[in-house]
Structure formats: structure tokens, C-alpha cells
């Protein structure tokens, strides 16, 4: 059989496609793949980030698993993630349902609800947040207005964690946008048919809306879980990881070991352990939601 040949109208060769995506490949190789590999290698050394390191095998990993610092930071990170993510999904879904209403000026409301997500990631907002909860701050004024005793936000483990959770909860905009987009895709006929059959709004939400948002809920769950596990800015700026390391996340541990204590080998080993942990958590999420996702499909 004669092999079919195609005339190339613009004279490009066999490798043109590859050539065109080379900027991306080179960029990824230099700025992602190389640091990724280098990080693993450095995790097997006693590098201080400045002098030539010595190979020490899995010593950093052994130190990580036998010391209390890493395990403590893992527990804090998981606790923070398990508190924040469900709350954030609930709040963003509620906001999306409210903003899905067809009322005049809804675009303005949507913008207003999204603003914290833009502001929240800025340093200025984090600093402002810090001052809201100090003695005499807005939080204390609100509690005293209602005749409640002042809460010491920074001094106790629970309230310090609550401050950070509240900051990140405030930034529900990106999850809300995904929910809002999915809500738009649900045909109005479903709700009309349900109404004709005597189904109320609440029941329609649980029987129609929630099941049809299954896929986007899972997407949000995975994205928010990964983001929460990588938390660094808020505890670093607001609580400094305290009190008693109760807000000391893995991100802070890596930063301190790398830049404060010049323990680059250990910091890189922790980064790899962290990578494995995040992967494991995401795989667990996939596993526990597998049946539900298959039903949706």
C-alpha cells in the first residue's frame, strides 16, 4: 500500500511542533524539573545552602521521623486543613447559591464577594488582619459591644488557629466562582419540574443542586486541600507559628530550617516528605470519593 504523504503548506518540518513548545519545555525543565531533582539530592546531604555539602544518605529523613518538630508541624497542618476546607466549601457554596439569584445588580454583589480573595493574599491585608485581633482591636470592640468578655486571640492555641482559619475563610471567592459556574449549568427545568411535584427549595437544594455539583465539589475539595496544606504566609505573619507551635505549619518549618537555621539538607528532605504527604492526602480523597464520582459519570 502506498504511503500517503501530506504536502506541508508552510514548509515546516517534523520537529516544528517540538520547536514551538520548546520555550515551555525549557522553562519547566529549568525552573521546575531541575529544582525538583536538585531538592531530592540536597535532601540526602548536610547542605547549609552555602558551603559544599557532604552526602549523608537518609539521615535527614531519620531525624525527621524521630524528632518532634516535623511530626508536630504535620499534625498542625492536617488539623488546619481539616478545619478550613469543609468550612470554606460550605461558605463558598452558600455564597454561590445566593449569588445565583436573578436580581438587579447581581454583578456588583458578585464582585464585592470576590474582592477579599484578591485582597486576602496581599501582605497588607495579612498585616491588617493581625491588628484586628490585638488588644483594643476591632474583634475586642465587637465582643465588648455585645457585652462579652474580651477574647485573648493570640495567647491560646485554639483562638490563634481560628484567626488564621478566619482569614483564609474570608477568601472564598475562587471556590465560589467554580460553584457559581456549575450552578449556571443546571437546567432550570429540573427545578420547575420539582416545584410542580411539590418539592420545596431546601429539598430541591439537597436532591437536585448538591448531587449535580458533585464533580465541581470534588475539584474544589482537591484544590482547597492542596492550598491549605501549603499554608505559610498567614501563620508566619500573624502568629509566628505560636503559641507553643500550635500554628507552626510544614511551610514554616521548611522556611525556618532553610533560611533561619541554614539547614538546607534537612529543609529539602522535609519538602520531599511534604510532597509525599500532599500526594497521599489527594490520593485518599480520590479513593474515598471514587464510587460517588463513578455514579456521576
Amino acid at each position: 500500500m502506498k504511503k500517503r504523504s501530506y504536502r506541508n503548506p508552510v514548509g515546516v518540518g517534523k520537529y516544528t511542533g517540538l520547536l514551538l513548545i520548546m520555550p515551555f519545555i525549557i522553562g519547566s525543565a529549568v525552573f521546575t524539573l531541575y529544582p525538583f531533582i536538585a531538592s531530592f539530592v540536597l535532601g540526602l546531604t548536610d547542605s547549609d545552602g552555602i558551603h559544599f555539602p557532604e552526602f549523608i544518605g537518609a539521615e535527614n529523613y531519620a531525624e525527621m521521623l524521630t524528632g518532634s518538630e516535623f511530626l508536630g508541624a504535620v499534625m498542625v497542618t492536617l488539623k488546619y486543613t481539616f478545619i478550613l476546607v469543609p468550612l470554606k466549601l460550605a461558605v463558598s457554596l452558600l455564597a454561590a447559591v445566593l449569588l445565583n439569584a436573578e436580581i438587579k445588580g447581581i454583578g456588583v454583589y458578585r464582585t464585592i464577594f470576590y474582592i477579599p480573595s484578591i485582597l486576602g493574599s496581599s501582605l497588607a491585608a495579612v498585616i491588617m488582619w493581625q491588628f484586628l485581633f490585638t488588644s483594643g482591636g476591632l474583634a475586642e470592640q465587637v465582643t465588648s459591644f455585645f457585652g462579652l468578655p474580651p477574647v485573648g486571640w493570640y495567647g491560646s492555641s485554639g483562638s490563634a488557629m481560628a484567626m488564621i482559619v478566619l482569614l483564609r475563610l474570608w477568601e472564598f471567592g475562587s471556590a465560589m466562582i467554580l460553584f457559581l459556574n456549575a450552578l449556571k449549568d443546571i437546567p432550570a427545568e429540573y427545578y420547575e419540574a420539582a416545584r410542580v411535584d411539590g418539592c420545596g427549595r431546601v429539598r430541591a437544594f439537597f436532591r437536585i443542586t448538591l448531587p449535580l455539583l458533585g464533580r465541581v465539589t470534588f475539584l474544589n475539595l482537591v484544590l482547597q486541600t492542596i492550598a491549605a496544606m501549603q499554608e505559610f504566609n498567614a501563620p508566619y505573619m500573624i502568629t509566628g507559628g505560636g503559641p507553643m507551635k500550635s500554628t507552626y505549619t510544614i511551610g514554616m518549618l521548611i522556611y525556618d530550617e532553610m533560611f533561619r537555621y541554614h539547614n538546607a539538607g534537612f529543609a529539602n528532605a522535609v519538602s520531599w516528605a511534604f510532597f509525599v504527604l500532599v500526594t497521599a492526602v489527594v490520593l485518599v480523597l480520590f479513593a474515598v470519593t471514587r464510587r460517588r464520582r463513578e455514579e456521576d459519570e
Partner: protein
Amino acid sequence: MKRFFVYLAAIGCITALSACGRVSSDSFTPPDGSLDKCTLRFSWWGGDDRHEATLAAIKLWEQEHPDITITPEYGGWDGWTEKVSSQISGGTAPDVMQINYDWLVSLSPDGDGFYDLGLLTDRLDLSVFDDEVLSFGRMNGKLNAVTVSVSGRGLFYNSDTFSRCGVAYPETWQELIALGSRMNENGCYPLDLDIQSGGTAWYLAVVYVQQQTGREFVTMDGGLGFTEDDIRMALDFYKELEVNHVIRTVRERSDDDGNSALYQSPSFIDGRVGGILEWGSSVGKYDMVLPEGVLEAGAFLHGDDGKEGGWMIKPSVLYAVSKDTEYPDEAAAFMDFMLSDPECAAVLGTSRGIPVSYRAEEALEASGLLSGIACDSDELLSELDTVTISPYMELPRVKELCNSAIEKISYGRSDTADAAKELYTSVEEYLKKVKK
């Protein structure tokens, strides 16, 4: 494509190790004896008083040397070590840097972490410094840095707060402890100690024990000088200060001020906290936020038995030149200007403490600028038998271990005996690891 990534992975593994071995003693640019047109980067940390004075000094330099412009990089102390050490490891350090004493041990243990200033004496006049002062900046026989000022932490009090409470500044430890309950009746505290980057809580406890025992917490060669009992005595002393309301507990302090610096907190600005323990070279930022003349230097506390020692001094800040600089002559000339130029000294005043350069000190004296609370405190300190702080005591990990022990006993998570045992073991192990 698969083969490409395999090669890349292999290259990555090989170069990963070499990426961390940038330091090499023969990679620096040698001096050429001339001052060429260039732009130098100069970095420092400090409070607003230091920033304003330094920017004015840079302006003066640029008027005299229009060909050599200076790009300033400055900020507060928190996070500064991390910033500069990442610049140094990345080969992007500023040409001239204000450095802290412990950076010599952590960043240049072999003397190759900074430019050898001994090679730049054509531009840098070292004859205006004492040999002992110069020895602070020497690592492995190489002059890595030059001390700007030698200073110690002293006690400074808000005179308004003390007048309002009707009490006098303490002179002994016992008087300080007695002040707690009296000032607390007015909602005030005689002193503030922190377990953040300042670490003044552990510092004062160390002074107390050094005064009692005559032993140093960490020796100059990096050995642990305190026994486990000494450490327990330090922790007991700290707890006594809390129990007697001399200071706020760690929890009260956190609830009041959050994570912000004391000089920016309402507790200090409103005068609820009546005293601080601060370096003479850094007290300006506290002085600036209170009405003029309100902050005053207090006595260095001693025991009823008359023991006065134990108070510490160290090079408060030093200047170093990056080993990666392309302009060593120009950097040395600028450094010399900042250290010893009489006009510059008058502009800088005591924003980095009292200069140890004879020429700069004479210029300050002639201008009548050797006054103020930093000078008062330094004068009192000079009359005492002081201990020079070991740079190993300043290492961030050592500070963190000590702060952690203080936090545990403050929160009641540990008694002083257990905390002392844990601290003794962990500091001893860490110092051994550092010196290895």
C-alpha cells in the same frame, strides 16, 4: 524526548551538589587600586532613626563621590537574617552589608564567606580601631568584617510611667521584683521581656545567673558554660519575674500585642509597659515613639550582695563586603566613609551606637553628639566588669531553644527542672554539631 529528560535528570543530580558549593576562596575580584564609576548596593536593618540617618549619610557620600552611587536596601530586623543569607547563598548579596555578630559563625566559619578586608587596606583605614575591636570580625585569620560599635543591652525606663506609679527606677534585682506588685496596682509593668526575635527574656535570665555564678552561658569557643543547675536557676528567675508581675506572662503579652514589635505596640506607646531591655545601638526606635526625654537609661541591676558582673557586651553591628562584589575598592572606600569620616559620623550620630572608630568618636564628641540615653547607658556599662557575648549564643537555633524553654514554663507545660534538663541537652548537642 524521554532520553532528553533522562539526561536532564542526570545533569540535575550532578549540578545539585555543586550548586551548594559556590564558596571558593579564589573566586573574588581582586582590588585594582582605582575608584571607578559604579553603583554599589548597601544593606542594613534597623529602626526609622537609623534609616533616616543612613540615607542622609548616603546623600553626603554621593555629593562627594558623584561617580559612585549607592542603592540602599533596608528594613526591620524581623526576617532580615533570612533575607540576607538567601542573597548570599544565591550570589546576589549587596556589595556592602551591615551584619550581625553571629553571621560570622554561621555564614563564614572558614573566613571565606565574606571578602577579606585585609586586602583592602589601601582604601580602608584600620589604624583607627583597637586590635581587640578588629578581632571581633576576624574568622580563620581573615578580616571578614569591621565592628561599627560595641554595645550591651541596658535597661531603659519610661519616666512618665514611673512617676505616675510613684516609684523610682530599680538598682537591684530585689528592687525590680518588689516593683511588680506596686506598679501592677496602676495597671503597669516595670519591664517587658520577649521570646520573639529579641529574646530579651532569656538574655536577662542569663545576666542574672552569670552575675551569681561567674560562669558564661556559652563560651567564646562555642562550649556550653552553664551547668543544668545554672539553666534551672535562669528559668526559676524568669518565672519569679512573671509571678511577681514584673513582666507580663507570655500569654498576656501575646494577647496584648500579637506578633508585632514592642515599640510599635500600644502597650509601650501608652506607657503600660514601663521598661525595656535594649541595645544602646537600637534604643532610638523606642525613644522616637515616646515624647522627647521621656525614655531614660536606668542602672545595671546588681544583687544585694554587691555582685555587679554578668552584664554582656558585643559588637552590636559590623560592616562586611560581599565576596562576590565586582567593586572591592569602591566598597572599601564607602565602608571607610561610613565608619570613620568625621562629617559622616556627625550625620549618623549614635544611630548604630557609639562608634568604635577613634576618628568617628572624636567627631561626635566635637559636635556635642555624644549624648542621649544610648550614651548614658554605655557609660554606666563601661564601669562594670562585662562579659563579651559568644557569637554562638546569638545563633538563631540556640535562641529558639531558649525561647521555647521560657514559653513552656510560662504556659505551665513544663516545670523548670524538666525544661532545664531538656534545654541543657539540646543546646549542648546543637553546639557540638555546629562546631563539628
